[in-house]
């Protein structure tokens, strides 16, 4: 039995139906556990005070936002190469979640920036490329909404996603070149101690795992509803003839 069997919409509906409850429960548990650990059982930072706790929402949402785009890229390529409808719809389903996470990341970042840097916003490379990511999500979603025929829309958005990825990477380098900023460097790199202390680090890992689970659950859910919509459309088309 090959993995591609689940590219059949009906099989996918069945499988996702059983998986979603598990993922949602797991996600809820991990997020609640991670957040309470982070909120109530870690000390306030000596410098940042209690505001450091925004970290537990900010970093996971930013992480998911970036990786959601990757997922969409992979799904788009699969659609273009193998023409599995589920793949195209999964890409479509991930976009609103991705953009929501981007907005959460931006808002929590801004809320954090106010006490930390004394400003809501700074044109720092990381922030800027994050904002640019928001624009790419926006274009992608708008294109889906504007094209009526679902297969055409899937094709067009897939090409846009691939081309967009190239230009998103270029933009990232461009912003670095444009302004060397004051944002935190990656906290999950090898020399992590330098940035985020262990006490904050472990609960953060838990919350991030929770966000990833949540993302998977939401994508499955959204893909399901997209499939149902296509189904309803197909049934309508049949009855209309």
């Amino acid at each position, binding site marked *: 039995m090959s993995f591609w069997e689940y590219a059949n919409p009906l099989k996918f509906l069945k499988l996702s139906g059983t998986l979603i409850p598990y993922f949602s429960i797991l996600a809820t548990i991990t997020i609640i556990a991670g957040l309470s650990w982070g909120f109530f059982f870690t000390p306030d930072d000596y410098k940042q005070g209690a505001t450091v706790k925004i970290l537990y929402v900010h970093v996971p949402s930013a992480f998911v936002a970036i990786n959601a785009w990757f997922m969409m890229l992979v799904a788009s390529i699969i659609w273009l190469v193998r023409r599995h409808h589920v793949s195209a719809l999964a890409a479509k389903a991930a976009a609103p979640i991705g953009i929501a996470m981007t907005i959460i990341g931006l808002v929590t970042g*801004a809320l954090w920036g106010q006490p930390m840097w004394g*400003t*809501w*916003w*700074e*044109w*720092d490379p990381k922030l*800027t490329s994050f*904002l640019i990511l928001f*624009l790419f999500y*926006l274009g992608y979603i*708008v294109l889906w*909404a*504007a*094209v*009526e025929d679902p297969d055409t829309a899937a094709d067009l958005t897939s090409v846009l996603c691939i081309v967009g990825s190239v230009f998103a990477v270029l933009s990232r380098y461009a912003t670095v070149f*444009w*302004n060397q900023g004051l944002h935190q460097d990656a906290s999950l790199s090898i020399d992590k101690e330098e940035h985020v202390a262990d006490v904050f680090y472990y609960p953060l890992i838990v919350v991030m795992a929770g966000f990833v689970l949540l993302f998977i659950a939401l994508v499955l859910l959204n893909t399901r509803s997209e499939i149902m919509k296509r189904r309803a459309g197909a049934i309508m088309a049949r009855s209309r003839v």
Partner: protein
Amino acid sequence: MIALIFRDLRIAVRAGGGFGLSLAFFFIIVIFFPFAIGPDLHLLSKVAPGTLWVGALLACLLSLERIFALDFEDGTLDLMVTSPLPLEGVVISKAIVHWLTTGLPLVFLTPFLGVLLGLQNSNVIFLIISLIFGTPALSIIGTFGAALTAGMKRGGLLLSILVLPLYIPTLIFGAEAARRGIQGFETQTSILLLSGVTLLSWAILPFAAASVLRINLR
């Protein structure tokens, strides 16, 4: 007229209708300025009111082309002229729909963009006020421009060139009002002048636009 307004609103929110797009365009074009000017927040906040006003103006401009051109191409305009609806009513309905779908939403986005450009929260209010009083003028002037170019295929660029000069008074008074407010001067005069421009435009341009439309249909 009500029927026309509802139909146009309905078309606007349908797929491909373009609702929300001018909002997105406003957002994007405003955050393009930092890329062009450089990341210095202090400098940015100085040019912020002007940037936001130019952005709003461009967002209005880009959505003008749809106003009449589609109706012209598919023959609706011919039929509308021969219908009981007065052409002035058509123009006013179109301008109202344009403002509802473009001008008004822009106002709500302004606070967020203000933050990105380093404006103080308390100062954003001046921008909002100036936009509320100014954008209706942008809509009716733009409708007049759209009527002028209704007969042309893809006349978007020509339309821009015709309309932009007409936008100058609105832009000057509007941006001035916002800038004065932010710098702590009194803003009443500029707001008054701005409203004057708006009222004048709504008083005379519907007739001008209707006559121009009639000419374009021959």
